């Protein structure tokens, strides 16, 4: 009872001692959480075989944003485009009897085949690594879990680094740390880079809103990437009707060979 009284007395004192009131209008006390909305002109992208890469623009808006926090740049937005997920195998070559051969390998569980990130600034200066790892935002923070038990964790790190490096160098993983720009106090525009070798299938656009380094809201939106054209039709045929496709290949060979022997016949 006595303890309760003491706290009850302390509370108003603390309110006087620290400028708690000053924070109230800018913070949670307003009762409404900041909102985040994103939109794109399309939910499907058709790419032809001569596709050399492009930019995808995502528009977004902050609602109920705090003017002061906006003014001092306490809001950060990260927008990512994650490709379809699949297993990925990294292999390492070593010299064996003078010949370079794959000796070690590691398979990672369900990682996005492509990953493009745009942010207002360096993602590692937005939030700390452990919490980025938790939400899996950023190329260095994507979950890369090896299949099976690997006793040596040093090796896992080595293969993870190699995976990220290879994906960045072949363009499937990209990042643009100034890709998100505020066009007005609450509207932003994110430019995501689509690599030339982007896989087709269901991609996911995700937007994350950080306030003073804390993730406070996120949104996601599916985006289908469809490859078009004769080349894609061939790829589909090769995978969906392999026997008919193989038969066609043989038929072309027979016609070409036979045709040549008729056309060039000497007698």
């Amino acid at each position: 009872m006595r303890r309760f009284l003491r706290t009850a007395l302390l509370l108003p004192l603390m309110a006087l001692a620290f400028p708690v009131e000053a924070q109230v209008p800018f913070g949670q006390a307003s009762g409404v959480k900041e909102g985040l909305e994103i939109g794109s002109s399309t939910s499907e992208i058709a790419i032809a075989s001569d596709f050399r890469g492009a930019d995808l623009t995502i528009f977004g808006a902050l609602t109920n944003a705090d003017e002061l926090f906006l003014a001092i740049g306490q809001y950060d937005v990260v927008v990512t485009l994650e490709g379809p997920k699949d297993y990925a195998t990294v292999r390492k070559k070593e010299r064996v009897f003078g010949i370079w051969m794959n000796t070690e390998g590691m398979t990672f569980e369900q990682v996005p085949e492509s990953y493009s990130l745009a942010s207002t600034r360096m993602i590692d200066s937005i939030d700390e690594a452990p919490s980025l790892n938790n939400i899996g935002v950023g190329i260095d923070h994507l979950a890369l879990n090896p299949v099976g038990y690997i006793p040596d964790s040093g090796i896992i790190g080595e293969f993870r680094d190699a995976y990220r490096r290879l994906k960045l160098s072949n363009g499937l993983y990209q990042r643009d740390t100034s890709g998100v720009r505020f066009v007005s106090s609450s509207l932003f525009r994110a430019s995501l880079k689509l690599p030339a070798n982007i896989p087709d299938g269901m991609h996911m656009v995700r937007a994350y809103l950080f306030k003073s380094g804390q993730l406070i809201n996120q949104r996601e939106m599916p985006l289908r990437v469809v490859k078009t054209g004769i080349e894609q039709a061939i790829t589909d045929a090769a995978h969906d009707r392999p026997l008919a496709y193989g038969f066609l290949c043989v038929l072309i060979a027979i016609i070409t060979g036979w045709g040549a022997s008729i056309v060039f016949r000497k007698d």
Partner: protein
Amino acid sequence: MTVYLPIAELSVNIFIILGMGAAVGFLSGMFGVGGGFLITPLLIFYNIPPVVAVATGANQVVASSISGAITHFRRGTLDMKLGSVLLVGGLAGATAGVWVFSWLRRIGQLDLFISLLYVVLLSSIGALMLQESVRAMRRAKNNNPLPIKRPGQHNWVHRLPLKMRFKKSKIYLSAIPIVGLGFGIGVLTSIMGVGGGFIMVPAMIYLLRIPTNVVVGTSLFQIIFVTAYTTMVQAATNYSVDIVLATILMVAGVIGAQYGVRVGQKLRGEQLRALLALLVLAVGIRLAVGLIVTPNDVYSVAVGGMSY
């Protein structure tokens, strides 16, 4: 002008592929070889994934062998029965080969294995051919006639059971070495993308003692069916036959071959064979260098799982 290869998943210059096809076609016409053992390494040098290069190479050999087989069939220098026995072994070998191929691909050793096989094969064949052609050149210089081969000479092959009579070839021979030879060639077809004529022809002449006049036609007969079968199986299991690449190579190849045949008839054999031997050796050495030099990146990444 670039063209996109849908299965190899890369853009290539169409004129380089046409040139490759025509050059290999020319050589194959000149020397009477299928050209698979040259086209596959050339494609690999041009950054086509070995998986695709091998499967597409097998498809290309179908086209380059067919006109030769038709000619031999018309002339009656084709032993259907002998060819069919070879084919039994060939189809079994190709099936086993595709299985090994897929397994090597799963464990990530396919590229290495293809290169190693080519290095061994090309360097030994190139060295043998060079030796033979140099000897022939010396012989021609000294005006010594060719030693006459004694017919009717028998070796261990002729003591095997399960003998069959081949009327057209006028031989009585066990089916075991024929099926065995077909099997070995079938394995090479699916793992290396070659027809295998350059091994089969000497083996039939020197090992099985089959008369020379039916050897080429009969081997072409078996090569067509084994490569066609391999193309189908590769398409069905590894999805690795690139129809665009194959078509460009085949069209350029059959045209190149026609000119190769004409030039080949005019030139002297020994020098030609020495040249081909040097070319084969050069391709083999280039592949060997690729295995030995330190790669730019010791790591590689592939979509999909790994199994042991």
